[in-house]
């Protein structure tokens, strides 16, 4: 017994080192699996506040590009509106939302794209009815999925995250596959499991497939950069060039699918 106590006392710093190492390795492993990083995330008031303050300064540097981007989107939406004869009301009836999807605008206060598992932080939280598993898009296409929230801030799993899996499809045919990221380039993501029979052409548009109830069908992702057969020789592996410049993001929208609880319920009863 005495020897054990002596051993512990002699090696107390090494044992303390091992203990802390176990904790940090545990946290690391947790962060490498989807939706597990519960404790260590930047959606808390201190880190959120720091990023918010820094963003309130740095957002001025990109004002011009951001304005151009918003103007471009406005023009696109207006042309859609006038060409399809949708009744353009000047007011929004906020007591009854028609349709399945509601949108919330948010601002990215922390961007990251050089790691393997990138997370963004936005300045809206559960107070603005942001919940886990809502989709996040920008004017040019898909950004990611909400992970953790607190009252004022939320973290977003970027599409540049190796744990992320989103269902995507070809725009012109309905052949679908899984969008994931291999961690190499912040401009390219990978679309896998596309059937060999699909006719792929360089430059074809890839959109979301609407299978997961997170994103509606037809949100833009990118264009085909190149493709090859994977090791099984049955499926294509496609490199998709993103429409979004992930290194320069500011204004985003969070999409909520009102029917998602119903769909989830149904899928749960099927299992």
């Amino acid at each position: 017994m005495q020897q054990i106590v002596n051993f512990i006392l002699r090696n107390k710093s090494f044992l303390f080192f091992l203990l802390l190492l176990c904790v940090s390795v545990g946290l690391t492993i947790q962060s490498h699996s989807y939706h597990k990083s519960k404790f260590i995330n930047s959606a808390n008031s201190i880190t959120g506040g720091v990023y918010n303050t820094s963003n309130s300064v740095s957002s001025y540097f990109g004002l011009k590009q951001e304005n151009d981007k918003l103007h471009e989107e406005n023009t696109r939406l207006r042309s859609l509106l006038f060409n399809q004869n949708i009744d353009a009301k000047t007011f929004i009836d906020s007591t009854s939302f028609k349709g399945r999807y509601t949108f919330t605008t948010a601002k990215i206060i922390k961007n990251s794209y050089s790691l393997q598992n990138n997370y963004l932080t936005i300045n809206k939280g559960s107070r603005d009815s942001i919940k886990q598993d809502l989709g996040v898009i920008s004017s040019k296409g898909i950004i990611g999925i909400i992970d953790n929230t607190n009252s004022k801030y939320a973290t977003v799993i970027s599409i540049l995250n190796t744990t992320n899996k989103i269902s995507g499809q070809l725009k012109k045919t309905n052949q679908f596959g899984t969008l994931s990221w291999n961690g190499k380039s912040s401009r390219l993501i990978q679309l896998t499991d596309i059937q060999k029979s699909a006719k792929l052409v360089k430059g074809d548009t890839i959109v979301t497939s609407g299978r997961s109830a997170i994103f509606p069908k037809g949100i833009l992702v990118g264009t085909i950069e190149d493709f090859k057969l994977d090791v099984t020789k049955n499926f294509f592996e496609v490199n998709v060039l993103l429409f979004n410049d992930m290194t320069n993001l500011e204004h985003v929208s969070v999409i909520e699918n009102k029917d998602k609880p119903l769909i989830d319920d149904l899928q749960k009863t099927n299992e």
Partner: protein
Amino acid sequence: MNNLLSIHTVRFFVLILLQVLLFNKINFLGYINPHVYILFIILFPVKNNRILFLFLSFLLGLCVDIFMDSGGINASAALVTAFIRPAVLKFSFGAVYEHQALKFNNIDFGQKLTYISILTFAHTLTYFLFEIFNVSKVIFVLQNTLFSSIFTIILCILITSIFSKKSK
């Protein structure tokens, strides 16, 4: 003594904020970021309570992790760096360290370079091993480690040179 305590407390917070708000946004050539916050570990007093030092380094890494949403990557890297520091001190300063007469303000450049380089390299290697977390990407880990440590070493040397009070 009080003065020493306040210097290190201020340095702790200033380095975290600098790392998070400035150095993580450099993204030189798309992905190279320096990890300047390890200056806290490099410049920690030589005469110290070992357990407190390990704990503070762990906490430092964890704070950076919370900002970066990176799990425990920085925490483990900082912890490993703090753990091997006595051995590195002994290796790079030899007798001066043995006699407990080490002052970071007046050491010659070669020794300082060795000391900072070894610690930075150890830190960056652990960092990328945990970040990439994939044995099949060893080349990628080593490549990132090399570039990132060179960047960090240059910045650390510059910062320590600028802010050192020469007592000669």
